[in-house]
């Protein structure tokens, strides 16, 4: 089943083998190719390059061609203020500045930036026949607000007939735009009407429902899928939105996903969205993004749910966060790891690993979900098991499963983030991928060599006996000799009567014993300040 077919299955409220993933990439794609939002949204070439990059990195099942709710408004004469890192903003409202509704004409395919977007749509749809492309149409209420300004809110109540006429017009614009996108090759038309979050259900039914319903009906008659997007807290209108009979509704983080799920499914509508844009996708880590995605996937279920961000992705969303989401969409095993970790209590005990791996043997730790039930873990454990005999008792291996508290503590103590991971003497050596035998052997051998070297260098210590001419040091020498025999540590013993040595070690009484030790601490690679500070503390 191709990506597109999988998505279609969800749109038909069918059961899907995995959750379809539709990242709402808009001007964010500009940041992927190093251009500003305005450069991106004004150029067919940039849009195509940006989408190529987004598709390569995020592996979507579906993706919008462009996310810009000002395209129609611009074509209808609204002035835009362009920004480097946001879609443009509408700054003039023709209907409140002397233009009358009857002067406005439905934009043709050559108005404003419409030709740029349609050309990009045609090319990208041809290039990726297996991905579903969403044509995003400005919803009738949001477009009406662009044209009239915030006056619309009061006029709805004071002058409802006028607003109905206006909505008829913006509805017609949306229907025409839907046709343009369908002709250009889009599989899904999304009516994006975020401003409806600001009105009550009665007003919604009075002004928005008639338009949205006929637009979705029209899209259905062309055998394409439709979606109704709303950003902002539109909880009050979810039911009314579903009653407009789109194939799908998509909502943002303001509305609880389980609430949307229960209403949408009861009305036979598929649903999606809800990943937190700012707090998680923009400001969080890849791990945060994965946990968020998993939560949505679990809550959304396997029937009719499409994983998406709540709304247009902020320009500077870290791409790693979205790649991390894609990773768990495709990797069931990663999902079960995150799930297991999530279920662990937060009061995890962490161990002090300062001296871990300082023993004679080399310790190889494999941190797994559970090598009996998870294939990648099993292979990793087997790989380790297989090479240890090669070292004839010098190497000891252990498995730590995160299904047990000990494993979780071990994992967090060593700051391990991925499962499975191999650690050699408490240092992360292999993450997620199972190392080929020769690489694993080489890594262990390297550690053995390091330890051997440390041993040799630790014997690079010497004893200096400081004395004056009149001291009898024979007894001192004998005692030192005896101690060396008993411990098996033989150091070179120097004797000196050098005055400078007295001063250097502030010796006030003689004889005196000084042990100097030379330790190799770093080689080739510059340690961090923190690490050197730790060394200094032990002196």
């Amino acid at each position: 089943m191709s990506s597109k077919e999988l998505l279609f299955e969800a749109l038909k409220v069918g059961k899907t083998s995995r959750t379809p993933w539709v990242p709402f990439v808009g001007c964010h794609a500009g940041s992927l190719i190093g251009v500003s939002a305005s450069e991106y949204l004004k150029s067919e070439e940039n849009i195509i390059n940006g989408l190529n990059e987004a598709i390569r990195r995020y592996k979507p099942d579906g993706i919008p061609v462009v996310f810009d709710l000002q395209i129609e408004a611009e074509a209808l004469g609204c002035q835009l203020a362009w920004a480097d890192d946001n879609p443009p903003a509408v700054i003039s409202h023709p209907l409140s500045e002397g233009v009358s509704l009857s002067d406005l004409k439905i934009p043709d395919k050559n108005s404003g930036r419409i030709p740029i977007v349609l050309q990009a749509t045609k090319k990208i749809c041809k290039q990726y026949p297996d991905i579903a492309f969403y044509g995003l149409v400005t919803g009738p209420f949001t477009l009406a607000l662009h044209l009239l300004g915030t006056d619309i809110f009061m006029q709805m109540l004071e002058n409802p007939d006028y607003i109905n006429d206006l909505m008829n017009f913006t509805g017609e614009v949306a229907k025409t735009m839907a046709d343009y996108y369908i002709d250009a090759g889009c599989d899904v038309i999304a009516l994006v009407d975020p401003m409806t979050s600001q009105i009550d259900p009665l007003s919604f039914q009075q002004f928005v429902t008639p338009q949205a319903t006929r637009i979705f009906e029209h899209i259905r008659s062309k055998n394409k899928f439709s979606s109704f997007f709303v950003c902002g807290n539109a909880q009050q209108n979810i039911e009314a939105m579903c009653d407009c009979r789109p194939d799908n509704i998509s909502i943002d983080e303001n509305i609880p996903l389980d609430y949307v799920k229960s209403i949408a499914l009861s009305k036979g509508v598929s649903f999606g969205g809800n990943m937190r844009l700012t707090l998680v996708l923009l400001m969080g880590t890849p791990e945060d993004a994965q946990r968020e995605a998993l939560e949505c996937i679990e809550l959304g279920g396997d029937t009719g749910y499409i994983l998406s961000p709540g709304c247009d992705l902020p320009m500077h969303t870290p791409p790693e966060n979205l790649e991390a989401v894609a990773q768990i969409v495709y990797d069931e095993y990663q999902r079960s790891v995150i799930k297991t970790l999530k279920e662990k209590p937060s009061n995890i005990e962490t161990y002090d690993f300062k001296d871990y791996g300082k023993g004679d043997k080399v310790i190889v730790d494999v941190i797994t979900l559970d090598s009996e039930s998870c294939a990648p873990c099993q292979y990793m454990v087997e790989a380790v098991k297989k090479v240890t005999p090669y070292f004839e008792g010098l190497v000891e291996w252990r498995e730590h499963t995160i299904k047990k508290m000990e494993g979780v503590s071990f994992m967090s103590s060593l700051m391990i983030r991925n499962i499975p991971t191999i650690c050699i003497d408490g240092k992360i050596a292999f993450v997620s991928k199972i190392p080929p035998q020769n690489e694993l052997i080489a890594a262990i051998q390297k550690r053995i060599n390091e330890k051997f070297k440390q041993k040799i260098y630790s014997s690079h210590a010497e004893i200096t006996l400081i004395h004056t001419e009149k001291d009898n040091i024979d007894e001192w020498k004998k005692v030192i000799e005896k101690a060396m025999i008993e411990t098996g540590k033989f150091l070179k013993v120097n004797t000196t009567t050098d005055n400078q040595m007295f001063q250097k070690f502030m010796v006030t009484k003689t004889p005196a014993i000084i042990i100097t030790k030379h330790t190799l601490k770093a080689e080739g690679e510059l340690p961090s300040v923190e690490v050197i500070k730790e060394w200094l503390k032990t002196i």
Partner: protein
Amino acid sequence: MELLEQLLKCIEFGKVNKNAPYPPDMKGQDGAEELTQIALSNGISPQEILQNALIPGMERVGVKFRENKIFVPQVLMSAKAMHASMSFLKPYFSSGEVKRKGTFVIGTVAGDLHDIGKNLVSMIIEGNGWEVIDLGVDVKTDKFVDAIEKNPGCIVGLSALLTTTMPNMESTVRKIKELYPNTIVLVGGAPVNDDFRAKIGADFYSPDPQGAVDYLNKLVA
């Protein structure tokens, strides 16, 4: 006082004047305009009108908005009714006969052109008896600083709707706190939350206008 009770209802439900078609179930009745004039000519003091009709009326609006019982259009209609009534009280404000609770300076931060949320906050706070100075949208730090200088003791509200303008909110707050450390700064807007408020050193965050009103009222209580 039945007259003020009636005026309060006009504010609560957004009945501007007798001819206003909204709300349909109050068609043909006197609105905020008529009732305020009648009240004044009946000798009810402007302070009483403000205290017993406008403020409690807008309070109900703020609470219902917070509880998702009404939405932007209804709030705007109430604000329109409130303003209609207020226009008759204005002369008494300048003469000092009616006292307001304080001055609130509000604006959307630099680079941000969104004004719906900011306007709602502004109207609900004004309706609660504060003098509101609305600096508009895309307001640079200097403009806020000027307003604070001209209105000693004022409280400041900043709005941001974009994740990309949140840093501008931070720099404005920091500048205000540097120059006027005692000035109280409130922040709000869709991407803002209390963690962000704490991080940038502002004094208060509320997800809805009524929260800001409650906070302001506590300051002058």
